[in-house]
């Protein structure tokens, strides 16, 4: 079965965990797919690849890149070969994420209320109080069911021995879930019958679970509360996702200018007058949400919404102020939080992280900078990073100067190698580095994670950066039953 031309080319990267290839050859959970692929000629696969591109384009599953005032529409590159996760691996990841989220949620509740964890000296107070996302406006504010993180996109990577590590906790406005759903739809078209044959679990429940959770948050006990998805607008790169989710859940997609606050209640402006809004799934950042309280120049928000939120007249998803829990400097303390709040040993490991606000650690990192990845604590999406092993001396020196200006705002992690999975590139399979972002939904009934997620892939040979802004693509992610 390994006769096909595009398999001969496959050379696993040494020292890197390969999702498909083990010491004993192809791993069992990949065999069915490989058999299927082997029956296809490389022309067939290339045709499938083209079909995928065409489907994305014609359905408008695009994001817009703006340069010199002109928008260019692009598709998020899609690799047709699925990434496969075994039932055992999944059950571990699922448990680990649930544990982590339970702790993070308790942390948010605590930090905006009694601050026991600070008083007990587990998390240093200055890390909290110097975090720009620690919002004093949230102090003692009651949120429904004490749930802060309704939707989380926790990024996982696998080291050379296959161990899962958490790279980032995204607890504010995690994006990409529409690609999880669309990638699966495309795969159904590309490989007829393969999904049921392999026993792949469905991810299509995501919108209905999210909807159920949103519904449960309605402050008005009425049969038909108004749930809306608040989008920044059509120029946002994730706008496609906003429309997809709104459509799949059957909720109204609104922009800030559609909403108005009157007497501590939020209303939407309709052709027949104002209608009260009960639940807002917002994809607008905290800082822009209420020009009265936060950034006064925001055009995207709703003036006075914070007042309605404080009064409990509207539910906001995710809660405001979650950034204090996914700040990269606070990430360091998540394993401690798990022990502190749950009395459990953390299942998922953290990547070792150095806090550059700490003199000793900074010096260590500077001395070993070519083995480090340095990141800004409050940025995501692969922006503002320094990949020590790949940066020029000049870049490194410039970056160091940047760090010294505000060391608290930087952390460093040893370069973790990221596991590799086969990708179909120019007629053959090649290993490329991947990560995994499952989407967890927390509601009053607990945490639910649809079996799957978004596998991002660094399509450039040798690259370790999977972000779409840096040349990354994605794959359909299969969790086997």
């Amino acid at each position, binding site marked *: 079965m390994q006769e096909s031309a595009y398999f001969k080319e496959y050379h696993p990267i040494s020292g890197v965990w390969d999702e498909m290839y083990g010491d004993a050859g192809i791993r069992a959970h990949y065999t069915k797919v490989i058999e299927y692929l082997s029956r296809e000629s490389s022309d067939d696969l290339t045709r499938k690849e083209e079909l995928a591109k065409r489907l994305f384009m*014609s359905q408008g599953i695009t994001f817009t890149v703006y340069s010199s005032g002109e928008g260019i529409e692009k598709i998020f590159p899609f690799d047709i070969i699925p990434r496969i996760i075994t039932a055992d691996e999944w059950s571990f990841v699922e448990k680990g994420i649930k544990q982590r989220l339970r702790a993070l949620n308790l942390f948010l509740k605590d930090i905006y209320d009694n601050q026991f964890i600070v008083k007990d000296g587990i998390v240093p107070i200055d890390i909290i109080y110097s975090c720009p996302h620690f919002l004093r406006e949230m102090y003692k504010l009651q949120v429904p069911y004490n749930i802060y993180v309704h939707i989380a996109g926790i990024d996982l990577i696998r080291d050379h021995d296959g161990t899962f590590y958490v790279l980032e906790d995204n607890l504010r406005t995690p994006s990409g879930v529409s690609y999880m759903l669309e990638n699966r739809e495309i795969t159904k078209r590309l490989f007829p019958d393969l999904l049921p044959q392999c026993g792949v679990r469905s991810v299509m429940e995501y919108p209905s679970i999210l909807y159920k959770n949103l519904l449960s948050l309605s402050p008005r006990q009425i049969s038909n509360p108004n749930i809306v998805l608040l989008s920044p607008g059509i120029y946002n790169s994730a706008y496609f996702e906003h429309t997809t989710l709104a459509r799949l859940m059957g909720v109204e*997609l*609104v922009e800030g200018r559609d909403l108005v606050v009157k007497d501590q209640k939020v209303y939407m402006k309709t*052709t027949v007058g104002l209608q009260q809004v009960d639940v807002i799934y917002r994809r607008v950042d905290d800082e822009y949400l209420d020009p009265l309280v936060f950034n006064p120049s925001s055009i995207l928000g709703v003036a006075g919404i914070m007042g309605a939120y404080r009064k409990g007249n509207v539910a906001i998803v995710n809660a405001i102020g979650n950034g204090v829990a996914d700040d990269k400097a606070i990430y360091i303390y998540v394993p401690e939080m798990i022990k502190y709040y749950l009395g459990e040993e953390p299942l998922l490991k953290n990547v070792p992280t150095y806090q550059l606000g700490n003199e000793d650690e900074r010096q260590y990192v500077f001395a070993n900078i070519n083995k480090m990845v340095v990141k800004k604590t409050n940025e995501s999406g692969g922006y503002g990073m320094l990949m020590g092993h790949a940066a020029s001396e000049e870049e490194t020196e410039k970056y160091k100067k940047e760090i010294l200006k505000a060391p608290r705002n930087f952390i460093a992690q040893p370069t973790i190698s990221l596991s590799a999975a086969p990708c179909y590139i120019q007629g053959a399979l090649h290993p490329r580095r991947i990560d995994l972002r499952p989407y967890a939904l927390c509601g009053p009934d607990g945490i639910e994670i649809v079996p799957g997620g978004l596998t991002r892939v660094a399509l450039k040979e040798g690259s370790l950066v999977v972000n779409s802004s840096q040349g990354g693509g994605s794959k359909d992610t299969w969790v086997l039953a």
Partner: protein
Amino acid sequence: MLSRVASSLYWLSRYVERSDGILRMLKINYASSQDTVQEFTWEPIIRIFAGHDEETAKLGNDSRTVIRYMVTGKSNPNSILNIITFARENARGVQEHITKDLWQCLNEYYHTVKDNRLENALKKDDPIGVLDVLIKQVMLYYGTVEITMERGEGRSFMNIGTYLERGIQSVDILDAKFVSIDDNPDLLRDTTYWKHLLLSLGGYEIYLKTYRTGFEAENVLEQVVLNNDFPRSVIYSVNHIQRYFERLKSDSNLDSSRELSFLIGRLQSHIRYSSVKTIEDEGLHTFLTQIRTQLFGIGDALNIHYFANS
């Protein structure tokens, strides 16, 4: 329905309708420019659809230059390219309120206009062929609206947009053509002149069937303003605005709908109780200016009462 959604559907339709008017106008005038006996000028077309400024003054009378400016001109806010970009942006903001088919159809229209091949074809191929490709996109759009869109509030706003835009265009074209006659009374007896006017509004065949006496200014005027069955007549547009507005009425916004009903009803009567004779007595230009003002008035009232832009 959200006010913004209603407004976007309305503007989406206005833009698409405008593009249709421009394209047909360009096509017929280009044809006209090719078999010109008398001096052909693009001036009225540019005036109606692009306004008059330094840039349009530089266009001159070269057909390809004018057509390219009107179709793919980036600096022309009313070029097909810009209009369709606006239309698509409006549609994008209301994607969950239009069918996927309609979205894909607009998307395709947009990509067709943006395609470099179109620009190249305008430079060297037959412009009519190029314009036909685009006109077909509009027809596809209308067909898709017709067979896929839900017959609800959204559809009513879309139709009001379409007919308001069409009414304004018919008034503008008529006004421009008749103004030219004031400068050059010979045109009054120029058969090709009227033929082109009717062709650009798609009313040539109806005219031939209705009037057996050849081309006369009065008959043309009657058809374009007062013919209930001619889909581009002013009265047809107003009748349809009225028809779709009736469907929007609901109990929760009585005051607003009453005001709008009044505006539409008044305009409808104004036209319905006019005749070629009374229009001529009143002065055609005065008459058309009044109609245009009232059409704009309806747009403003929608803005205030339904689109929350007070």
